[in-house]
């Protein structure tokens, strides 16, 4: 068997990438930041105030601010002089993501996972304003091995209404090798009833049909609240996968309206 012709490979890859990028472009948020807003004094001042509310201490100099689109709005993405990054919801002023160097209060170096969980609990209870009121439940506690980038320890919470996962969630990830912490927290008022009209089994069949899945498909689903303009919808997220004889995963994720049964979006595997 001959070895691969790498020059030929490059042209194939570039072509394939362009095709996939173009076909997927309509279904994803814009992944580019806006121009710098660093010269916008009021935005800088407000950003500093919001970060100070989150951290509880004065903000060091800001090196960059850009606008970034999210699934339900926009955030200012702020980079400080000490290279911490904060995503601030432009409507609420809440810090909804933070990528920060851990101070002594939240250092997890040398700690086991149960001790890290305690640190994560303390962090999220301090920084997610409505954590206790929302009755957040732990939905994920996981160690992810990133190879030579080290290990990540992830703890995630979600507020539920009945069986539905709402838009209020939080997560804390530690990278002990780098002494860094990543936080995400969104707090959204629940605007819809969370009792589905579409049974789960029917939703899974609709999801499987969306990807023309075969008899070997493995399918699971969860009931979620999703943003819909200024309102919300109740939906089933159906994840379905089937491997072909070469081990390639077919299928993906389908969002099905839990009231009408309409397929709202599909997100195939790469």
């Amino acid at each position, binding site marked *: *068997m*001959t*070895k*691969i*012709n*790498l*020059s030929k*490979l*490059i042209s*194939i*890859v570039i072509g*394939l*990438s362009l095709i*996939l*990028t173009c076909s*997927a472009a309509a*279904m*994803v*948020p814009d*992944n580019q930041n806006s121009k710098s807003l660093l010269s916008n004094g009021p935005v800088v001042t407000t950003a500093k105030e919001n970060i100070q509310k989150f951290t509880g201490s004065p903000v060091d100099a800001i090196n960059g601010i850009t606008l*970034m689109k*999210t699934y*339900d709005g926009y*955030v200012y993405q702020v980079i400080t002089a000490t290279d911490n*990054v904060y*995503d601030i919801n432009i409507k609420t002023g809440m810090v*909804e*993501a933070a*990528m920060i160097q851990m101070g002594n209060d939240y250092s997890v170096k040398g700690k086991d996972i149960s001790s890290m969980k305690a640190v994560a609990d303390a962090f999220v209870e301090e920084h997610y304003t409505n954590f206790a009121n929302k009755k957040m439940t732990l939905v994920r506690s996981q160690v*992810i*091995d*990133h*190879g*030579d*980038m*080290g290990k*990540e320890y*992830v703890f*995630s919470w979600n507020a539920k209404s009945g069986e539905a996962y709402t*838009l209020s*969630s939080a*997560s804390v990830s530690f*990278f002990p*090798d*780098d002494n*860094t912490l990543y936080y*995400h927290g*969104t707090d959204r008022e629940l605007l819809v009833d969370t009792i589905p009209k579409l049974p789960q089994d029917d939703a899974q069949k609709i999801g499987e049909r969306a990807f023309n899945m075969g008899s070997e498909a493995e399918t699971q689903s969860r009931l979620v609240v999703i*943003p819909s303009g200024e309102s919300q919808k109740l939906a089933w997220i159906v994840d379905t996968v089937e*491997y072909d004889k*070469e*081990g*390639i*995963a077919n299928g*993906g*994720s389908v969002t099905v309206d839990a009231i009408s049964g309409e397929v709202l979006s599909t*997100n*195939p*595997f*790469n």
Partner: protein
Amino acid sequence: MNSDNVFFFDGHGGPGRLQFSASSDQFMTAKTNSVYPYLQGSNGQLADTVLAVYMSCNSATLDDTYGNVAYQSFVEGVDMSLGWTNTITSGQSDYWSGRFWYWLDEGCSVKIASQRATSDTNTAYGGNPGGMDSVVCRSNGNCAMTIDPARAGV
């Protein structure tokens, strides 16, 4: 790929293999085999590559027959090879890659750019990273090198 410093694949794949045709079974595999072209034993063709990103499902997952794409790429001389150990969805992967190149362009190391791209994907997709959080880097160090400024020919 002698003079290329960065290689980026965006498409279908599975453990130990990348797919190069939408409708047929044309693959490139990590390890030597009798059916498909392969990476193993590339005789230094990849040695000048500083970063290779294999953005496909399970590109960092080991297959007993075909090997592990990200790992084999590193063995063949790529300084830093990125792959994934899970299935990844096209929406999140497209978003992730845009953010990853953005952070690299801002001067971040591959490691930090990867972490921040995953965080941004979580923000953009309401906490659903679509498998992108299963990213793995294989390198001699800890993937802390930058690619900006470019180091072509160094």
